[in-house]
């Protein structure tokens, strides 16, 4: 039922594959960028805005932003799994968390948070996922890093950093036991 030809990549499995590339070579200090993101998100908040983090890196960021910005209500987690456009080639992703939106979506201002914005396909899937729960009044997006390479007309309201990265490299946020953020860069 799936289309042949497209290799299954590290998105599939919980643990990343491929050759690690020194993140130090990139001018990315995840902790410093997080503080910049926090300022950007603060400026985007309106009364009643709810933060929804995109699993997994975005969910970590949203959780911390929600606590530090003392947002009202709960924080949401959203997964792109059920609306991905490459399901036929990649199949079901394992190890992804389910969407948890413990508040009404109908008529609300949703601020999506993600770690890395690339093609925009995850954001498209996530917006579809969001609409399965209701019709929001407005949806915004804030990201830690915009690495360019968009394949859909999607732009963030705020990006803490904009970088150029070869298509062969995969940039992902990592979180250690103490809750500190760092970036990992791998050859896809």
């Amino acid at each position: 039922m799936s289309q042949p030809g497209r290799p299954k990549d590290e998105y599939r499995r919980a643990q990343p594959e491929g050759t690690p590339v020194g993140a130090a070579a990139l001018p990315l200090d995840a902790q410093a960028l997080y503080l910049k993101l926090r300022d950007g998100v603060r400026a985007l908040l309106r009364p009643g805005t709810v933060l929804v983090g995109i699993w997994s890196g975005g969910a970590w960021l949203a959780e911390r932003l929600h606590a530090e910005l003392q947002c009202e209500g709960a924080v949401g987690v959203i997964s792109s799994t059920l609306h991905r456009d490459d399901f036929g080639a990649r199949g079901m992703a394992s190890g992804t968390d389910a969407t948890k939106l413990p508040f009404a979506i109908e008529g609300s201002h949703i601020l999506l948070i993600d770690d890395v914005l690339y093609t925009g396909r995850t954001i498209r899937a996530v917006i579809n996922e969001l609409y399965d729960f209701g019709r929001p009044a407005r949806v915004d997006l804030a990201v830690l890093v915009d690495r360019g390479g968009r394949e859909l007309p999607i732009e963030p309201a705020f990006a803490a950093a904009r970088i150029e990265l070869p298509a062969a490299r995969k940039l992902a946020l990592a979180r250690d036991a103490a809750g500190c953020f760092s970036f990992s860069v791998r050859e896809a």
Partner: protein
Amino acid sequence: MLSRRNPQLNAHGELIHLLSIEGLPRDVLTQILDTAGTFLSVNDREVKKVPLLRGKSVFNLFFENSTRTRTTFEIAAKRLSADVINLDIARSSAAKGESLLDTIANLSAMHADMFVVRHSESGAPYLIAQHVAPHVHVVNAGDGRHAHPTQALLDMYTIRHYKQDFSGLVVAVVGDIVHSRVARSDIHALSTLGAAEIRVVGPKTLVPGDLAPMGVRVCHDLASGLRDADVVIMLRLQNERMSGALLPSAAEFAKSYGLSPDKLALAKPDVIVMHPGPINRGIEIDSAVADGAHSVILPQVTFGIAVRMAVMSIIAGNEA
């Protein structure tokens, strides 16, 4: 054509058909249960549909009667946005003498992407899986006395939902074991997932003699089978599959092996009681137990939809 490799798995060890629990590694079973958890929450959404199988055709091919299983497969496929075609085989070409493989070839020519098959002959889904094109997937919805893998998976989902972990569990499977494809699939699944003790309980005529190698403890006495059990899986007395005098009477069976509240009291205080349905009230299970506080029979049905969604979406995403 078929190598020694498990025909359900591709060269990467990914599930492409679901034919039997036997031989499936633990991580495949766990992936299905985890994915089912994701789909269970789809029921809480305003839109109770996801687009994973949009544009795909799922053929429900039931050569043997079923209401619950066929309906839950249909709901599962529809929630995944597939087009579902239900074939009433008893009234179709099979009744006119068409062979199984000819039926499959014709349905494949109608661009079937997945077959959900129930058949009274053990192995029929294997035969189909060997003959379909690489992009077509097969799910066994019960074949003869052999296997009923999605029932076992939904049973495992139910157990994990209520008990979290399999490692310390004592599970008793009670009743007509010999005719039960559910019992076989449950035993394989429980053993793969690491249940501490699997007991099989029933009269000598209804318990096969070759179960010991499967790592189960056989009890012919209900009281000792139930003692301190965490999970009791009752099986339906399958009158339609019985030939010859395996039992004196259903009433006699009910007296010795029917699950009543006083017998259930021998199990752990937080025991859960399961049944694949349809239940024969007053034979293998008393109404007081089936409708009682320990019964999780109806949640099993709900979980069955999510588990079947998980199976269909996983196999549909893997290449042969």
